[in-house]
């Protein structure tokens, strides 16, 4: 129970469904912030009080479990390492993968629980043979299956998402209101919970330091300077402060971050188009395809709120093992290594990979 409205309503529904429910709030930061400001932050003292108050009203016991040490290692340090390596990580997925449905789930199972119930909007379905499948929520707008794409069959077996079929957040809020839950009108949290002021760049600079480097175009011409390559994200346009205008006068975007040489590569928007994606860290959310080395039709989604794009995918051999290799039907914009590509078949989540490399749809030289 984060202290938000979704997990509070999920808990209430779980109780009504006849389960024996205990509310658990995860302490993820060793030094919780003081009070919530706006919609930011998910581990403040106020959030923990809100979660406790919701548990009181629902009539279930409530505990705080401390995963701050694991969270720092598996999520925060990973976030810093990924940015330092020039990639764009998704810490919420890492948290689902390593904390909520791993460390928390393991502890819960050991203590005698059967499942972790959360307020995620996603569906869990059993096929004819009883195999667990993860599906999109029935309401596309609230669907959170993307951030759960990293869960495996073993984890999904112990997941319970009572909000799967709720068509809108407004209904969840109304239900919370009706149940007397004071969090009914609490703002949603959108930002990275461990960066409470939302200033990711400043937060990273404090931890990785700043080092002046060059911004270059695809031909290798120096067009500007920066205060640390880690602060840039593929697809970023704002904040480049380029002194030399592009020959065609059109805006330029970050195409690549090279931490080794502390270089940021920029180019025109067209050069962001990605024709192929591949990642060696892949998982299946349930049964794997029968012949994954044969190309199969699917849809690929590369951000929590991006539209899925038809694609073909397969498991390919590489020098050091295998990777999930995805070719979207039409090139994708702004794909950054470190992001997660989730592969769907219809509404079903098939699996995912963390993107290691991308192939541009527009080779260097073709454009400026």
């Amino acid at each position, binding site marked *: 129970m984060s202290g938000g409205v979704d997990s509070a309503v999920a808990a209430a529904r779980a109780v009504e469904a006849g389960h024996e429910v*205990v509310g658990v*709030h995860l*302490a993820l930061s060793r030094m*919780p912030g003081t009070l919530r400001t706006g919609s930011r932050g998910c581990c403040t*003292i106020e959030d*923990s009080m809100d979660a*406790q108050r919701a548990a009181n009203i629902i009539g279930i*016991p409530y*505990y*705080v*479990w*401390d*995963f*701050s*040490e*694991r969270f720092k*290692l598996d999520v925060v340090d990973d976030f810093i390492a990924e940015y330092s390596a020039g990639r764009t990580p998704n810490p919420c997925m890492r948290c689902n993968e390593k904390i909520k449905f791993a*460390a928390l789930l*393991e*502890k819960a199972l*050991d*203590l*005698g629980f059967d499942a972790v119930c959360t307020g995620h909007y996603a569906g869990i379905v059993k096929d004819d043979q009883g195999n667990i499948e993860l599906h999109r929520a029935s309401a596309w707008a609230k669907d959170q299956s993307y951030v759960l794409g990293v869960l495996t069959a073993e984890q999904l077996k112990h997941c319970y998402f009572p909000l799967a079929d709720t068509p809108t957040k407004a209904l969840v809020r109304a239900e919370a209101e009706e149940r007397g839950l004071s969090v009914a009108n609490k703002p949603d949290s959108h930002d990275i919970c461990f960066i409470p002021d939302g200033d990711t760049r400043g937060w990273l600079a404090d931890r990785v330091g700043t080092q002046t480097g060059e911004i270059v175009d695809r031909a290798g011409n120096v067009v500007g300077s920066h205060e640390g390559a880690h602060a840039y994200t593929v697809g970023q346009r704002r904040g480049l402060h380029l002194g030399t205008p592009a020959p065609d006068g059109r805006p330029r975007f970050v195409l690549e971050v090279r931490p080794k040489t502390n270089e940021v590569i920029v180019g025109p928007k067209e050069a962001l188009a990605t024709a192929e994606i591949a990642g060696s860290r892949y998982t299946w959310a349930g049964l794997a395809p029968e012949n994954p080395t044969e190309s199969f039709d699917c849809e690929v989604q590369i951000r929590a709120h991006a539209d899925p794009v038809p694609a073909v995918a397969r498991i390919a051999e590489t020098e050091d093992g295998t990777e999930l290799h995805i070719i979207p039907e039409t090139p994708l914009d702004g794909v950054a290594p470190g992001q997660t590509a989730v592969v769907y078949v219809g509404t079903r989540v098939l699996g995912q990979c963390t993107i290691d490399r991308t192939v541009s749809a527009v080779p260097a030289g073709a454009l400026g």
Partner: protein
Amino acid sequence: MSIYLDHAATTPMRESALQALVAAHARVGNPASIHGPGQAARAVLEEARERVAATVGADPIEVIFTSGGTESINLALKGLYWQRNAGVRRPVLLVPDGEHHATIDTVEWLVSHEGAITVPIPLDEHGSISVSALNDALAEHGDAVAAVTAIWANNEVGTIQPVEEISRVCAAAGVPLHLDAVAAYGHADIDLRALRTASNARGNAGPVAISISAHKIGGPIGIGALVLSRQGAVEPLLHGGGQQRQVRSGTQDVPAAVAFAAAAGESERERASEHARLERLRDHLIDGVLTAIPNARLSGLTGEGRLDNNVHIAFPGAQGDSLLFLLDMAGVAVSTGSACQAGIPEPSHVLLAMGRDEAAARSVLRFTLGHTTTAADVDACLGALPAAYASAARAGLSNRAV
């Protein structure tokens, strides 16, 4: 089944205190008012002060009612520090390791806001304050010492401190001593007059201030006292009407004081028989736990060196908060004993100060007994513990990096 073994957190209010509280709330009168109702309230308040004073070997004038242990400790430490630094600089505070957070955080505030310098006094493996280290520190820092503070009995591990020896070295060094007796009150013989005599204390030196709290002995939450020797001098925290020797301004809470006095009187009258009864239950619980879980380890001392109501045990391989949760699910309420921030148990700083590692400091439970505890409660706890330990040990120290 609902078994309450967390009496050190708070203990059920005694019937006599509850009735006194309700009755007093039914009467109007500010004890500072000059008219009849004011005088009536004053009479009731002062009688309560006399009754509380009698339980700690103090004169009534020496009992300053506060809002509880935390305020008493703040008043003693800040008050002594400011008083001792008026016109001269005496920045040093001698503070044992393993004190309660009310002390630790107050001292930290004095360091960051008033330029205090803190000198830690180590604990031994049983949690006892080293008197020789204290004596050495007093000699080394001489006239620069503002005050010494020490917990009378450790609230987590239950170790009763060598209070008389600590008092003697402070009196000899001419330095005021504050004693935090919040956990000890009701379970140890607290007698300010006897302690000052035994330690040859003079003026604002030796034991001058003792902090106590009502709800630990069956009084209401929200009232405590700083027992401040008439020769002790502190600067006040609160300014206003000049009540209570001008040390603690604010309209005095007559109903709470009356209820406090009722609980204090009853607790003191029962103390000898309760001591024997609680010790038996305590030792039965200790033996039962160590027999059922052979690798469990008792922290602190045994026998008379330990609070009669305290059992503090490390459970290797398990996390204290997992055990707490499982016992709670089984209807047994216990504590990890350590401070919480937003409900997150910290590793016990007392165990760390006793030389134990962080894994041990996270594996502890504190069981504390009280005036309503029965042998059946202890047996029920012993019955629930093995299964809880088996599950908690399986879950292990799950926050730790693997």
